């Protein structure tokens, strides 16, 4: 709804630096710039070099996905619902399609489940490589890992393009199953890439994850204890870095995960370094999952025809996206458009940890803590 310009209220004045009641503290507005992942603003109150408190100001990239979803039919909702986190598009797509399939009573054939799983795990590696490059590498001032990770990510992107036809925004999983079968020669190419990438991870460990400079900057910084993590309701690598073994792939297996053998890496420390290591170990597990999936993939149809209409009712589905549990509630009303779509994603749930962790730390530690959360503003704002 738009109001005529004359009636529109002027926007709030941007706060840059203001004197506050405490004579020794200063309020500084950080952002709204683009810290490698979308826009957000943090209003930090500093006392010398220490951050006293943080107020997060989000919503700069809010585009009303949930409202738009009420206007689009079930299939044309897919492209815009996967946009909030384009580097994690398969998971956002799959998380939305699961409840739609449940409402429609459509079951994806086993081969389709395996193809979805392969696409999702490739997506997890690509997402974590982006995170290593930007949120861990650049934020800690490490240029080499930025180049390496982005270079290797492109090899996966090329394979994803071969499978889905697009580099990032795949729209690969409509209700009923994936759009395409594995192309000829895909298995060999992926196996070759996984062999290369596994060796590469050893080098990543040597230059970045075991690098004394990185360890010194991340270890013991931004500690989130187990009980705090549970109370704040954070998810994904942030939760697992605080020692809670919780992964939707294990607790409520979807796709082909029930047939595959993999571990859920958890670390007890709860600091930034633990969250770094959870994602590093997850990439190794994804390699393991992909190899098994390529080996075990059954023959048969990949998809079933799904109706365009969904009956009345509510369904809640969830997947483990790269940023944690991605829960979607879809409500049908016997038409081809949903009555309501509610998205509960990892970034929005992890947002609460930001003001909680960036407190009583040096200003210089802020990027490391922010990076370790892998917060994606666009996904949180929707």
């Amino acid at each position, binding site marked *: *709804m738009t109001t005529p310009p004359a009636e529109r209220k002027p926007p709030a004045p941007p706060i840059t630096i203001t004197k506050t009641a405490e004579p020794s503290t200063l309020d500084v507005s950080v952002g709204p710039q683009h810290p490698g992942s979308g826009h957000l603003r943090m209003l930090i109150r500093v006392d010398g070099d220490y951050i006293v408190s943080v107020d997060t100001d989000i919503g700069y990239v809010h585009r009303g996905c949930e409202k738009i979803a009420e206007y689009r039919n079930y299939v044309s909702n897919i492209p815009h619902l996967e946009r909030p986190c384009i580097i994690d598009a398969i998971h956002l797509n799959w998380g939305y399609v699961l409840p739609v399939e449940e409402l429609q009573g459509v079951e994806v054939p086993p081969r389709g489940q395996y193809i979805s799983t392969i696409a999702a795990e490739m997506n997890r590696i690509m997402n974590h490589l982006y995170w290593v490059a930007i949120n861990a590498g650049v934020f800690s001032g490490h240029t080499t890992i930025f180049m390496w990770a982005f270079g290797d990510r492109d090899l996966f992107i090329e394979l994803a393009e071969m499978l889905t036809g697009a580099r990032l925004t795949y729209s690969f999983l409509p209700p009923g199953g994936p759009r395409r079968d594995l192309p000829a020669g895909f298995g060999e190419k992926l196996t070759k890439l996984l062999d290369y990438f596994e060796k590469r991870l050893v080098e990543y460990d040597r230059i970045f994850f075991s690098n004394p400079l990185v360890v010194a900057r991340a270890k013991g910084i931004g500690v989130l204890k187990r009980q705090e993590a*549970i109370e704040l*309701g954070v998810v994904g690598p942030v939760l697992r870095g605080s020692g*809670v073994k919780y992964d939707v792939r294990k607790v409520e297996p979807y796709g082909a995960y029930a047939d595959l053998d993999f571990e859920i890496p958890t670390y007890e420390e709860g600091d930034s370094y633990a969250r770094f290591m959870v994602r590093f170990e997850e990439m190794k597990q994804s390699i393991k999952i992909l190899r098994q999936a390529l080996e075990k993939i059954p023959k048969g149809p990949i998809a079933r025809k799904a109706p365009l209409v969904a009956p009345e009712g509510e369904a809640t589905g969830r997947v483990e996206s790269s940023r944690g549990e991605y829960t979607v509630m879809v409500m049908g009303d016997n038409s081809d*458009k949903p009555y309501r779509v509610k998205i509960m994603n990892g970034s929005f749930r992890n947002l*609460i940890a930001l003001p909680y962790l960036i407190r009583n730390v040096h200003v210089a530690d802020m990027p490391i803590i922010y990076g370790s959360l892998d917060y994606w503003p666009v996904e949180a704002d929707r």
Partner: protein
Amino acid sequence: MTQVALPREEGIINQLKDQFPEAIKETKVDRARRVTITFDKDHLQEIATFMRDQAGFDHVKGIAGIDYPTHKKIEVLYFTGSFSKPEIQDLVVILKTELPRDNPSIASVVSVWQSAHFHERETFEMFGVKFEGHPDLRKLLTLDNWDGPPPMLKDIKFPEMGQR
């Protein structure tokens, strides 16, 4: 379809029914791992405390509002789950309650579930639901100069996006 016994899902329903015989209006096992419980909004705090302390549901995954203009009500759904108890980690219990559409207001659960903080702020902004006792109930996502009504209500239409 054959009926499969779902003891854990039924167990939670029975626990709540025993504890709050008047407050629980309707219960439903949607499928394995999904339970919807409709309750009276005045008993939210007690039910939330019971869910957290006795049943082990230690966090809120999200809070959804659903607007029904024809029934003149707004439904609020709390998606709760458990991290600390591995045996019920896979359950999602949806606590559902309805509020009058002209002045929707309900108690805040932030004192019970800290994780509800930003979800309540979002629902306040998008549906105009006032969460009494929320420590910091401000706008969250919309523009600072948005002066329209809560945008997720059904009577707010965006004709440029098509027909609904």
